[in-house]
């Protein structure tokens, strides 16, 4: 009789594929995962308390640092929350620009998320390098508009920091030529790849029945087959003006999440094309009203959520009538999507943990806040 012995292995916090300083206390039986406990907080900086000590506008650059891949999406959610709290109207053109930026962010995030996931499977950087190439182009666009690549700090209450520069749209149109080629190529490279299928199909299944009860959102939820997308479920900004589809998975495994992300890139591209069509007709209004520097919302609370590339990103704000938020709470998608990690990994092999983690697509800046 072979007596197997349970072994506790620490994966992380210093580990090549934990996407930052994240630790998983894994109990393994041979190579099979028996239990897993996520441990985090290594990057915790009490973002919420910092925010409560700052004025509303001062928090805008801090939201960039939550999910540093998607600073535009973070900005959007925060700006929406403050606008709801203070009752600020946003000019139409600014809304279009916001949607444009957030959809670009989604493409950027999914390109790198897919790349990182394949990297965790052991592909030597190649899909990641291709994703990064497209990401760099999008970051160039961000830089043109906002002046920074990652920490864009582009959105303002009631608008955006400044209008799009003249060279932005031509460059974006060029990029839109490259994007389908990139996505098709990625599919050709990976979709039928037998090794990827072996590693992804049937791994990390989050069944449809339990996905909702775990509170996961974003591609993880949709990969499990639940068509929940805040953009459709509760359309904010001008999302009700665009045609786009919601891709959902069938089984809820790593492969489904991978395919959902790829399809979402296509849909985002579709939205961007529609934005480009409608943008010239959008009514103006002052895109960056400088008067909004000192927002003093009335007493009350507001919650705004958007479909960030990683899931539902919400900001809950309570105002006590002063220039600083009384309470500032971030509902971080990466953080909540980690809830089912333990159950998703149980019963699979150690090598699958990193792939499952990669398919959830977390950013520790957001998880730890």
């Amino acid at each position, binding site marked *: 009789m072979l007596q197997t012995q349970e072994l506790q292995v620490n994966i992380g916090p210093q580990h090549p594929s934990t996407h930052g300083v994240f630790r998983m206390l894994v109990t393994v039986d041979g190579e099979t995962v028996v239990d897993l406990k996520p441990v*985090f*907080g290594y990057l*915790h900086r*009490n973002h*919420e*308390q910092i925010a409560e*000590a700052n004025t509303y506008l001062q928090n805008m650059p801090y939201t960039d640092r939550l999910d540093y891949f998607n600073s535009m999406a973070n900005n959007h959610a925060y700006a929406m929350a403050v606008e709801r709290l203070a009752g600020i109207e946003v000019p139409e053109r600014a809304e279009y620009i916001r949607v444009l930026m957030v959809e670009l962010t989604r493409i950027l995030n999914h390109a790198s998320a897919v790349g990182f996931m394949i990297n965790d499977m052991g592909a030597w950087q190649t899909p990641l390098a291709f994703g990064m190439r497209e990401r760099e182009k999008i970051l160039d666009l961000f830089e043109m508009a906002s002046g920074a690549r990652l920490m864009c700090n582009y959105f303002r209450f009631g608008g955006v920091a400044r209008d799009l520069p003249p060279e932005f749209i031509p460059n974006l149109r060029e990029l839109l030529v490259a994007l389908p080629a990139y996505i098709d190529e990625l599919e050709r490279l990976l979709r039928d790849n037998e090794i990827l299928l072996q590693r992804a199909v049937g791994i990390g299944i989050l069944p449809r029945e*339990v996905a*909702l*009860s*775990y*509170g*996961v*959102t974003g591609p993880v939820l949709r990969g499990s087959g*639940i068509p*929940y997308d805040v953009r*459709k*479920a*509760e359309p904010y900004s001008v999302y009700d003006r665009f045609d786009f589809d919601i891709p959902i998975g069938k089984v809820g495994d790593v492969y489904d999440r991978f395919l959902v992300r790829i399809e979402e890139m296509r849909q985002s591209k579709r939205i961007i094309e529609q934005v480009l069509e409608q943008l010239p007709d959008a009514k103006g209004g002052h895109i960056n009203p400088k008067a909004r520097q000192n927002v003093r919302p*009335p*007493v*009350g*609370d507001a*919650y705004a*959520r958007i479909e960030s590339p990683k899931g*539902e990103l*919400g900001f*809950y704000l*309570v105002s*006590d*009538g*002063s220039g600083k938020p*009384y*309470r500032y*709470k971030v*509902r971080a998608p990466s*953080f*909540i999507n*980690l*809830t*089912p990690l333990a159950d998703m990994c149980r019963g699979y092999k150690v090598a699958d943990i990193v792939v499952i983690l990669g398919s959830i697509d977390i950013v520790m800046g957001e998880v*730890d*806040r």
Partner: protein
Amino acid sequence: MPEMSPAELRARLAAALPDALVDVAPLAMTPPPAHGPQPGMFHPPDPFVHPDHLVAAALFVRDTLGYALLSDIAVVDYLYAGCFELVYRFYHPSGGPGIVLRVRVPRDAPQVPSLTPHWPAANFHEREAFDLFGVEFVGHPYLRRIYMWDEFEGFPMRKDFPRQGDKYLGGDE
């Protein structure tokens, strides 16, 4: 796309769980200023639930009303009023705006029944609330600090937590 106003929700809850609802008075967030008017009282329209009936109310929202996505649990520390407010936010998987349940517990004995055994989505939310505010979720299977290290003393998001000069930051800064 189902839509439910706070008043409607209150009515449904009152019909189903008559004991669960509590009436609360408008709340002052800050002490009244020495001169000038009080900025305003905080009185959200959402139903307030008694902590003892929270689980029943949440399960009613999930199973009967169909709001199966527990999106957020936010804790607000109303230091001046001496209470914590927990804001539970639910969404319907078919879309539409969400509904909110609120629970107020006294600051000195913040105990709320845990939703986690019935609804795993609450797990990390509750652990976070415990870590940062010290709200104790009775019945949580693994109520440990999630961000701070286990030996950390105090609850950093409470309004009376020293901003500077505590034992971790060192003397005067």
